């Protein structure tokens, strides 16, 4: 049996049609797009086409607003560092507690250089406090960076509205949209979003290709300097094959947009309802009424996520967990902690993320397997007794030290 891949927020399979579009650019179309001869020229035209395909997916006004990079992380770093370099008089950054490490780790590093970083808190459903945001938006803020959708819970943030507010305060607005691009329709030309990060491998393009959307007129300071590639905004020879692949993947995501938001969402809802109905003491994290169509994050109380993943893997099912153990750290996911999910549940969160390749049969299989796995692990847990949690679990278990 082929495995069931429900970990599409981690990465996706490259669509065979994308691979097919890429192949000629490894061999016969190997030229450097910067070259004068015809070897290079054709490649240059292919990149131009890909740029327009991405422009279309993002709803950008101009194709020159699309800058190809190596990954989402590069796009994030380029955006934030550019905003700080371009406005040296502004020393503050606003972001959220639930960002991806590509933003959070960068911000921690920037703090050492004297920048002030404000982390917006979220409530139990992962929603931001807009009043707090408005209060922090002063003329000291260089850039606001808020993700479009959270990678763990799928919860959307009101980035369009937040960009308006940032714009009014004279601050730049960046959004890490790697989870949203290709899954929900975007129309950047009608927003005040200055910069947006895309990652190819999240939408069935290969790994190692990303995009920084840069609205025309936004002041910019390149991170990588050198040649004139990408109009001098991102030096370094273009990853031509992957750019072509991302263009094709963008086109296909546009075509599948309706399917993603109807059929994929239906399968996700079925999966979620099926599991919740059969597993006691489990609940959905994040904001179920306002999230990506493909993502479901379920907390299973009193057991640990890595153990769940190992058993799922035994059944050929791939998913992710916010548990500490999967990352080798001691703390469970910062997203779960930011939402105030109790430790009894935070260690046992599992993220199922579907794609347009997911099928009804796969969903049925996962619904059949998960309850057994959870029951099996709860039998091992000192916090569980029979059919429910041990009475007062924290007291039932009395460690000599904690």
């Amino acid at each position, binding site marked *: 049996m082929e495995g069931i891949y429900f970990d599409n927020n981690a990465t996706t399979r490259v669509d065979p049609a994308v691979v097919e579009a890429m192949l000629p650019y490894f061999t016969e179309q190997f030229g450097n797009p910067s070259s004068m001869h015809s070897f290079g020229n054709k490649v240059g035209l292919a990149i131009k086409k890909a740029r327009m395909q991405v422009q279309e997916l993002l709803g950008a006004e101009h194709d020159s607003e699309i800058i190809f990079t190596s990954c989402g992380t590069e796009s994030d770093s380029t955006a934030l560092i550019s905003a700080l370099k371009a406005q040296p008089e502004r020393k503050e950054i606003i972001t959220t507690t639930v960002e991806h490490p590509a933003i959070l780790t960068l911000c921690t590093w920037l703090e050492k250089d004297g920048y002030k970083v404000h982390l917006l808190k979220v409530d139990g459903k992962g929603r931001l406090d807009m009043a707090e945001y408005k209060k922090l938006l002063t003329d000291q803020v260089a850039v606001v960076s808020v993700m479009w959708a959270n990678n763990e819970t799928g919860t959307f943030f009101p980035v369009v509205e937040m960009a308006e507010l940032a714009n009014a305060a004279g601050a730049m607005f960046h959004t890490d949209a790697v989870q949203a691009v290709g899954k929900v329709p975007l129309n950047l030309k009608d927003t005040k979003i200055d910069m947006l990060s895309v990652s190819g491998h999240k939408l069935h393009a290969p790994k190692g290709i990303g995009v920084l959307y840069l609205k025309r007129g936004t002041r910019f300071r390149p991170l990588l300097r050198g040649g004139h590639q990408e109009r001098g905004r991102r030096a370094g020879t273009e990853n031509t094959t992957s750019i072509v692949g991302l263009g094709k993947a963008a086109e296909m995501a546009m075509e599948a947009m309706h399917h993603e938001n109807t059929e994929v969402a239906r399968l996700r809802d079925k999966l979620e309802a099926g599991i919740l109905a059969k597993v006691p003491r489990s609940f959905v994290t994040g904001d179920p009424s306002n999230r990506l169509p493909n993502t479901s994050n379920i907390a299973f109380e009193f057991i640990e996520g890595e153990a769940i993943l190992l058993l799922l893997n035994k059944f050929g099912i791939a998913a992710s967990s916010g548990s500490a*153990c999967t990352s080798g750290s001691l703390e469970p996911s910062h997203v779960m902690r930011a939402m105030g999910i109790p*430790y009894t549940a935070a260690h046992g969160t599992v993220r199922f993320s579907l794609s347009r390749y997911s099928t009804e049969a796969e969903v049925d299989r996962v619904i059949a397997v998960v309850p057994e796995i959870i029951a099996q692990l709860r039998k091992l847990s000192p916090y569980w007794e029979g059919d429910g949690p041990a009475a007062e679990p924290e007291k039932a278990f009395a460690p000599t030290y904690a």
Partner: protein
Amino acid sequence: MWDYSDKVKEHFFEPRNAGVLEGANGVGDVGSISCGDALRLMLKVEPETDIILDAHFQTFGCGSAIASSSALTEMIKGKTLDEALKVSNQDIADYLDGLPPEKMHCSVMGREALQAAVANYRGEEWSDDHEEGALVCKCFAIDAVMIEDTIRANNLSSVQDVTNYTKAGGGCSSCHEGIEEILVKVMSERGESFNPGAQPKEEAPKGGMTNLQRIKKIEAVLESVRPQLKRDGGDIELLDVDGKTIYVSMTGACAGCQMEALTLQGIQQKLMEELKEFIKIVPTKAGALSRASCQP
């Protein structure tokens, strides 16, 4: 995905002795749900002989925590309490054919649950102020708390010092930025600032032993692993001790064996535990050392 050994997988997928043990007369609880790891070890001890008749566990934790618990119960059944207490966390890891460095704390927890359960049976108080921090050095599984405490206790001021005292940073060196950050923090507490060019301290402490005592201890450790090596048709010989470098020669089937580096690493670990100081074991064959010192 963790690179778990087949043995770890086996004990995780089919844990031995899981669940409540009726009539247990020694119970040890360690960890907590907030740490993501909690283990309860239950023993049934025969009062006349102190022999562990049965051992069960309940564990909230990851794959290696469950496997470590399962392995521990298998290892101690039939042993007397005193024999059982000789089981070290390294023994648990060895029983499972090794654990990834990030997961060594699972075996430590097993060892602690054992101490707690024995103390409980004997009516003693067992406490451990042991605290774990974020993993800094992945080559040798050294965490931030350990590094901080060592810097504080010994007034250390260079990365090299930290490597000498804790081993952290002695392998692939990618954690040196992290170690420098800890140095900056701890040194500022004592009103100093970190200087990357500072000279390391002369020598690591020797644990208050004379040279002769040290060498005898080293010999004893080598003696203890010798039967195992001989079983595989090999042997080890002590050639020289120069400060904290211990020169050995691997002979017989051990020489050039693919597992040589791993074997040496294990011996080095045992030596460090016994001598309570950082040492480096150097096989005389050139090239083997680099493999011995970094097995991420």
